[in-house]
């Protein structure tokens, strides 16, 4: 028999008799349609004819008692089985909504929060740089030990293991530059100057830049994710409570590793880029490698290589520091770790480009 709720008025009391089998899957009466426009002084529920019931009946009972409470009238549930009465009461209580947690904010509050956030980030960044400086000073003055094993293992990870991807990217950059250069230079019959273009571009700019971008994506993200997950695992707290500076323990070995490996990778990228250019010059422009090499040496000098190396050291420090900083700033959850990795890459690449612009002006000014 299907679920039914029959209302009957007895004086001022509305008695609702529940009958049949109440199931969530089937059609069950709603309190609103049963009570209609009635305005009783009290409500009484009885469930003598209920053969089977589940939450659907609890919902009915709960809505009834919530309705009564709303109207300020008595709701008599005494004739219901005890469990039905208890659960119905619980359901009615759950219908009472508390104060809403309003997440909407005014523009004024948004601007204020964003400003406060920006200021606290700037403070954190300066604090981090300061801590790194102090830790490095203590290390140099011999006041604190250094984890060379960690540093060497990081050097292997960010240096040797990055060789394949750095090789591929720099080689391809060399090829692309050579083709682009050839389009213009050919018009003037100056095909051979492709060697000069590639030589200067790779040594002064692209070698360091490409290695920096690869490392920002590869190593910076890895540092942020690694330190971020250590943070969510309370490993950073465990260091702090022991009075061991996380900066000295985790950041310095990593930053030093990437700072040392970066110039080597940049030099390697220079060589691969030049090789790419040389290949295009030989295959497409018919310039023999020996001629290419000699032409390149007429323009590429030690200062050009030094410029690239200086840049690469700074890029390395940027990648290492931004990766570690974002890791330490990471929120203690899985999403936080992902965000910190993304943010490390973005920060790393952004600061590399900014630093490159500053270098361009600086080297121009000092005539390097």
């Amino acid at each position, binding site marked *: 028999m299907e679920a039914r709720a029959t209302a009957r008025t007895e004086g001022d009391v509305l008695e609702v008799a529940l009958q049949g089998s109440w199931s969530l899957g089937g059609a069950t009466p709603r309190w609103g349609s049963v009570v209609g426009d009635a305005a009783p002084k009290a409500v009484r529920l009885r469930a003598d004819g209920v053969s089977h019931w589940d939450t659907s009946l609890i919902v009915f009972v709960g809505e009834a008692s919530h309705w009564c409470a709303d109207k300020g009238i008595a709701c008599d549930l005494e004739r219901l089985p005890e469990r039905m009465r208890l659960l119905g009461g619980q359901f009615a209580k759950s219908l009472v909504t508390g104060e809403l947690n309003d997440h909407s904010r005014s523009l004024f509050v948004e601007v204020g929060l964003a400003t406060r956030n920006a200021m606290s980030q700037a403070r954190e960044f300066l604090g981090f740089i300061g801590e790194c400086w102090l830790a490095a000073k203590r290390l140099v003055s011999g006041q604190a*030990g250094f984890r060379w094993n960690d540093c060497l293992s990081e050097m292997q990870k960010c240096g040797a293991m990055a060789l394949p991807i750095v090789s591929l990217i720099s080689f391809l950059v060399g090829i692309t530059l050579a083709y682009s250069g050839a389009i213009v230079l050919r018009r003037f019959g100056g095909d051979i100057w492709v060697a000069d273009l590639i030589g200067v571009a790779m040594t002064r700019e692209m070698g360091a830049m490409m290695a920096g971008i690869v490392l920002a994506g590869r190593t910076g993200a890895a540092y942020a994710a690694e330190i971020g997950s250590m943070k969510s*695992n*309370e*490993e950073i707290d465990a*260091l702090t*409570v022991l*009075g*061991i500076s996380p900066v000295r323990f985790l950041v310095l070995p990593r930053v030093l590793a990437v700072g040392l490996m970066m110039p080597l990778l940049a030099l390697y990228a220079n060589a691969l880029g030049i090789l790419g250019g040389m290949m295009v010059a030989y295959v497409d422009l018919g310039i023999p490698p020996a001629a290419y090499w000699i032409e390149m040496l007429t323009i590429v000098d030690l200062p050009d290589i030094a410029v690239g190396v200086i840049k690469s050291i700074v890029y390395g420090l940027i990648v290492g520091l931004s990766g570690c900083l974002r890791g330490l700033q990471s929120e203690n959850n899985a999403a936080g770790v992902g965000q910190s990795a993304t943010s490390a890459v973005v920060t790393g690449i952004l600061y590399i480009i900014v630093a490159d612009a500053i270098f361009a002006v600086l080297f121009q000014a000092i005539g390097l």
Partner: protein
Amino acid sequence: MTTDAQPAIEVTELACSYQDYKVLQGVSFSVRHAEIFFIVGGTGVGKTTLLRNMVGLATPVHGDVRFNGRSFTGADVVERQEMLKTFGLSFQGGALWSSLTLRENIALPLEEYTRLPGDEIGRIAAFRLSQVGLKGFEDYYPSEISGGMKKRAGLARALALDPTIVFFDEPSAGLDPVTARNLDSLILDIRDTFGTTIVIVSHDVDSIMGIADRLIMLDRDTRGIIAEGSPRQLATGPSDPKVLEFLTRRSVRSG
């Protein structure tokens, strides 16, 4: 100067917040030497926040924490580091450094703070591990052992520098009753053997009734302490109904 009459830990009028939410205010209590002291309360009342503020992982909004009479909250970096060496903290999930083996995890604080030769540090680390029943697991990485073992290894690390105070954050959370009881008896052993002051954040009633000397109970509504005393006193004496409900929980199955 440290005297036995002086409490090991003294917390005065501490107010703590979590993000921008004020969790606790006006919290004052003291822990005696060699006492097993519990900080109890339901979930979300601020037990762990209080612990983090006590050990310096968070900065209190107001108030002071003193260890053996010396202020920790107002201490400078050097002073604070000195004090940090005297206590250990066992984290809820162990918080072992994942890139180091168990032996290396325990050796690290020793390498940092002592001038002992490497082989001796290795032996001490092995001894600490055997103390917590992890003999033979010295060269395992944290990812290779179970949750309960991680917790015990975390405890071994917390004990590495022979601390005078050890803090535990939910030591029995996520452990089966037998392992939890073994951990309790280990804690009791440590206190009895070394006279270590032990502060435990927990809501495990069995542990509380089993090993606590004294406890404070925190409450969300008052944002402070609603009861302080020995578990038996609180469970049998005239206590706040919330305290009685917490300490004398009966089975939900009637009869």
